[in-house]
Each structure stands twice: as structure tokens, then as C-alpha cells.
């Protein structure tokens, strides 16, 4: 049921996410693009879980947990960086440069 279209939609969303990561400089928006990519992957899992059993849906469950953890830590890092630099623009964030 709707396997092909779901996979195509997932591919489109994933591409949008990747393009977003490439063209944006705002660190928070970058994180949002990563969430979009994770969502696209989730859609693949759900679409295939119709044929391969419920393991796919459980995998989505784990992906969401990881996404929540990632968002929490990532945003905490952004907050910490913002305190140093007063900016979340990646251009101004070159702390890790040698």
C-alpha cells in the first residue's frame, strides 16, 4: 500500500534536509534540517514496516528517542556557544579551528 510514493516522499524530504544543511548558516536551523532528515528516514521505516512487520515502527521509536537526546544536547551546546559569541551563526563559530 503506497510503498513507492512513501519512499519517494521520504527521499524528497531527506534531500531537502541535506540542502538545508548546506545552504544555511544558522546553527539552530541546521539542527532543524537534521530533524527533517531523521523524519524522512522514519517515513521509510514506517512504509516498509507494513511489509516487514512491526520492527520498523519500533525502530522509529528509537530514532525519536535519539532525536530527542540529540536535540537536548545540541541545543545546550548552542546555548553555551551563544554565551561566548553572542551569535549562533556558523561563520562566527570557529572555536574549534586550530
Amino acid at each position, binding site marked *: 500500500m503506497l*510503498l513507492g510514493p512513501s519512499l519517494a516522499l521520504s527521499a524528497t524530504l531527506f534531500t*531537502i534536509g541535506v540542502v538545508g544543511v548546506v*545552504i*544555511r548558516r544558522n546553527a539552530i536551523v541546521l*539542527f532543524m534540517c537534521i530533524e527533517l532528515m531523521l523524519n524522512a528516514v522514519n517515513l521509510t521505516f514506517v512504509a516498509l514496516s507494513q511489509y516487514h512487520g*512491526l520492527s520498523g515502527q519500533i525502530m522509529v521509536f528509537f530514532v525519536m528517542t535519539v532525536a530527542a*537526546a540529540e536535540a537536548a544536547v545540541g*541545543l545546550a551546546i548552542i546555548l553555551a556557544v551563544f554565551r561566548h559569541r553572542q551569535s549562533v551563526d556558523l561563520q562566527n563559530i570557529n572555536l574549534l579551528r586550530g
Partner: protein
Amino acid sequence: MTEIVFYILGAAAVISGIACILQRNPVSAALWLVAAMFALAGIYVLLNAQFIGAIQVLVYAGAIMVLFLFVIMLLNLGRETSDIRRWPALMAGAAIAAGLAAPLLALRLYSPARLASEVSGSPVFGDPGAVLSQGAAAQGLAESQGVVGAIAGPLFQTYLVPFEVTSVLLLVAAVGAVVLAKRRL
């Protein structure tokens, strides 16, 4: 009927996704992302994954994106100049989009029959139900045990160890976030 709703929701998801990466204002971007997630939740419901749909709204829209919004508001971002990169990056973006989308979009030709033939390794497109019996079994399970009960079984039996590991991951993330965000301990 299902297809029409699917295509409407899919279009909504794609448009929201594009709007999300093109909006200058982080708050608008976050809201467009929420819209995309809503559309995806609707698609999950169409794909017979009601539980995942509810969880999607609950976790993504209700918790993660609120967290994003909270941080954006806390830093009071959103009234600044555009942060979209200049043309070299735009070109790279377009190239990546083309390079990535072309092979991935080939997936749209996938059908249950083709999936079944690839899984079984036989070149003939056979009856998908015979090869992919687990999907039908899952449907039956969902009907006999309820949508949530069907997922709970494998989650707490087959995947018990990953589940526990995830809880440790969450704990680590919580501690890490507190340590990072707190200026002085």
C-alpha cells in the same frame, strides 16, 4: 481516497520542508518544520501506524520543536539578516540535491511485488503476501491486541536491551544538557 489524502499530505510535507529551509526567520522555519511533521504524522496514520503518528505529534511537535522554539525565544533570535549562504554554497546545494535526489527518487518505482521479489531473490514478481508474511501478521496482531499492544510486545521482549540502552542514552543526554547549559555547577 487514501491515495488522494496521501498526496495532499505529501505535498504539504514537501512544501513545508522547502519553506523551512528557505525562511530567514528561525521561528518561521521551526513552525514550517512543525507543519511538515504534522503532515508526516497524518501519513503515518494512513500507513496504518497510528501509534507512531500519535508519538510523532507528541514527541516531535510537542516536545522537540517546543524545545527549539524555547531556545530561539530565549536567545531572542529572529530579527536579523538572512543567514542563507552565498552562491557557491547554493550551487553546491543544488548539485547535492540533484545528485542525491536522482538515485533516491528511483525508489518511487518500488512496489510490494518488487520488494517481495528482491527479498526472496527470485526474479519473478510473485505474490507479495507469501514472501512478506510478517506484514500481514503485524496487521492481524494490531487488530487482535490494539494498535499500542501490538507494538508493546516486540518492544519489551525482542528489543528489551536496545530499549534499556536508549533509556541510558536519554539519561546521559539529560545530564550532558544540564552540564552544558549551566554556567556554573
